[in-house]
């Protein structure tokens, strides 16, 4: 048929140009041959394309066939709801709202920082008396076959909205690669990525409070890779603007302001035990970080304001181990977790915003906690916290006014019990003996409710 077709084309060309045809030279013939050749190639290309499309169509119809309703032998009139894969929520994004409130009873002023950490973050995350906690509004959905979007807005009780998380995540890079872009909780440590409603205690461990301002969030990107092994081995890195403490929000500058590297390994031991361990590194350059109310050697009333510029490097270790009889976490389970962080800062400290000299210190902290679900719906937990403010090397100019050695390790012991009427609600009682401020020990009592309504996404390990 093809040959016939080409001859027809050639004939048509000849007929259309009879004069030229009569005066056909070798060159003309050559041109015609080339044309025919081109046509032929064109033709073959199209056949191949058609073949491919046919194969695709066949494959599709095969798939459709397999999804098509299968006659069921059931005697009753059964209901069939949709033949497509169930998705989190039609085309509407999944919307969730976390409602939480506390009652706090304690003596000491929360504005006083843990001893030796006056130049660190100090937001305890709780207040005296009855109070509403941040309401957390979450929206998430697949954007297209390539991306998924997640946004979490924190509605402050006093009014105002802050963007807690707003990121897009690729889901189809394959090969174990995961990419996140936007504002997200850093993947360092174990607790950092967990949202407040999933915490096992009312507040974060002291080490998270002073070294990460409870939870470090970054604006930037995160790349993770999961190794193709039976054991869970994951490595990841982040570049951010240094928005979250200890970063100082790099402004009017190109490049990145903070970097994170982390690695996690984990596995099961039988069906009853599972564990995960991790290593994290964080680095940022702090620029003109001003701290107020810092005590000094001169015992200035109300403390002084200091300014620090320099490098901040933090390394952390984390582990979690979980045990459930028969692996059934609905009945009973035990969770043991601990983290250790160590931060080195070195640079220039300006005492009282006036006298500048070198300053370097290594601070660290750790916690160990365990939560035991002793019967369905009921859990109890115990946590021990400790911080080490370290001994600072202070430049000669400031040796007489900056405190280099506090000789006190802040600590705290916390106990909690919570009742979970369902997966979506939790009521908690927490008692703590807080010894984080030298000479100001405190007994604390908290009552808390945490409820989640709407779509509730799966929790991380």
């Amino acid at each position: 048929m093809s040959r016939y077709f080409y001859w027809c084309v050639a004939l048509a060309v000849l007929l259309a140009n009879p004069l030229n045809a009569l005066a056909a030279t070798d060159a003309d013939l050559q041109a015609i041959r080339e044309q025919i050749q081109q046509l032929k190639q064109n033709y073959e290309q199209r056949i191949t394309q058609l073949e491919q499309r046919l194969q695709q169509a066949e494959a599709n119809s095969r798939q459709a066939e397999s999804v098509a309703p299968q006659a069921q032998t059931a005697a009753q009139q059964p209901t069939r709801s949709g033949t497509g894969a169930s998705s989190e929520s039609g085309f509407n994004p999944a919307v969730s709202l976390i409602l939480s409130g506390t009652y706090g009873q304690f003596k000491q002023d929360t504005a006083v920082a843990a001893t030796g950490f006056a130049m660190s973050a100090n937001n305890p995350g709780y207040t005296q008396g009855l109070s509403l906690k941040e309401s957390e509004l979450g929206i998430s959905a697949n954007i297209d076959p390539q991306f998924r979007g997640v946004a979490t807005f924190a509605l402050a009780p006093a009014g105002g909205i802050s963007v807690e998380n707003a990121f897009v995540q690729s889901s189809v890079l394959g090969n174990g690669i995961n990419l996140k872009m936007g504002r997200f909780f850093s993947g360092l440590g174990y607790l950092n990525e967990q949202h407040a409603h999933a915490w096992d205690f009312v507040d974060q461990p002291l080490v998270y409070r002073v070294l990460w301002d409870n939870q470090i969030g970054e604006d930037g990107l995160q790349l993770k890779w999961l190794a193709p092994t039976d054991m869970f081995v994951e490595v990841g890195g982040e570049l951010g603007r240094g928005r979250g403490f200890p970063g100082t929000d790099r402004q009017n500058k190109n490049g990145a302001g903070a970097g994170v590297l982390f690695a996690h390994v984990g596995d099961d031991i039988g069906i009853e035990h599972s564990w995960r361990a991790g290593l994290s590194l964080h680095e940022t350059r702090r620029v003109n970080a001003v701290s107020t109310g810092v005590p000094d050697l001169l015992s200035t009333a109300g403390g002084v304001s200091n300014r620090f510029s320099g490098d901040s490097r933090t390394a952390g270790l984390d582990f979690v181990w979980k045990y459930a009889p028969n692996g059934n976490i609905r009945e009973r389970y035990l969770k043991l977790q601990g983290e250790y962080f160590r931060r080195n800062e070195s640079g220039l400290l300006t005492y009282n915003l006036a006298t500048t000299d070198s300053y370097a210190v290594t601070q660290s902290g750790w916690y160990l906690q365990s939560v035991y679900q002793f019967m369905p719906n009921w859990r109890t937990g115990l946590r021990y916290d400790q911080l080490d403010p370290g001994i600072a090397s202070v430049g000669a100019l400031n040796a007489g006014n900056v405190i280099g050695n506090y000789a006190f390790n802040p600590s705290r012991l916390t106990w909690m019990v919570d009742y979970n009427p369902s997966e979506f609600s939790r009521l908690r009682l927490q008692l703590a003996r807080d010894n984080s401020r030298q000479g100001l020990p405190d007994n604390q009592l908290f009552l808390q409710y945490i409820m989640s309504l709407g779509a509730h996404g799966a929790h991380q390990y």
Partner: protein
Amino acid sequence: MKTKQRVVSVKANPRLSEGYAVARKILYAFLLLLISGNVHAALNVFACEPEWAALTQQLAGNQASIYTATGALQDPHRVEARPSLIARARRAQLLVCTGAELEIGWMPVVLRESGNSAIQPGSSGNFEAAQYVSRLEVPTRLDRAEGDVHASGNPHIQTDARNFLPIAEALSKRLIQLDPANTQLYQQQYTAFNQQWRVAIARWEKQAVSLKGVPVIVQHKGFPYLNNWLGLKQVAELEPKPGLEPSAAYLGSVLNELQQHPARMVLRAAYQDGRPSEWIAQRAHVPAVMLPYTVGGTPQATDLFTLFDDTIQRLLEGLK
């Protein structure tokens, strides 16, 4: 028609046709190489629940390397996205799960963290068994006040043996689609399973004739498919709402109810705490029957066939 065109056009230019033929040969050789590479490498299957691992085993024989994500004594609603699950999902070529939101509390995280594009929802590597059967108890009212309800119907489809017929057919097709080199094997396995299973269903239905119309109490709404199949009549549930723990007061009211509508036995799945069933069973003077629920739920339920042998055996014993 298309082959005819191809043959003639190839003839039109012998030199081109030779080049074409060589190119094709290379292509075929390459494809053959790819396929032969797969012949020895077993298909990596991630089964969410033991019953789907067992079914895949029936349909793929040694051709599949199967990892089972949950145990028979684990509540399938309450599983954590453990690191081991994420690591196993990373290399899986086929995910075989119940679907219908049974795994909604953990699977989304596993899928997201796995970084495996082949098994994401909607792709051919993601098989949801519940799509191939008619689901019961699809709620008309979606409200969390109703407890842990599943929007797409009750997901505990594995308690009706008949459900395995359409699921096996669909799963076999999926295996062939993912691993066409072993089409013949999968077809043979399916044909054999289909035959044996139909014979077994007839046997089970005959054995279970005396169960028809028997009133039962269930601990969790986990048996509508079993009831539908064998004709058991569910008169009460021990969970006030699906997924919520029964309180003593609620159990008391169930007991009162039982005075009016007596039941013959209390059913629970192997993974469930036995205490509520035992409590009611003692007071209502009826036997508490623990059913394997899935493969591995009892020592006797070692595969799909023995799962139903044992289920019916235990039900009949409860009737005595």
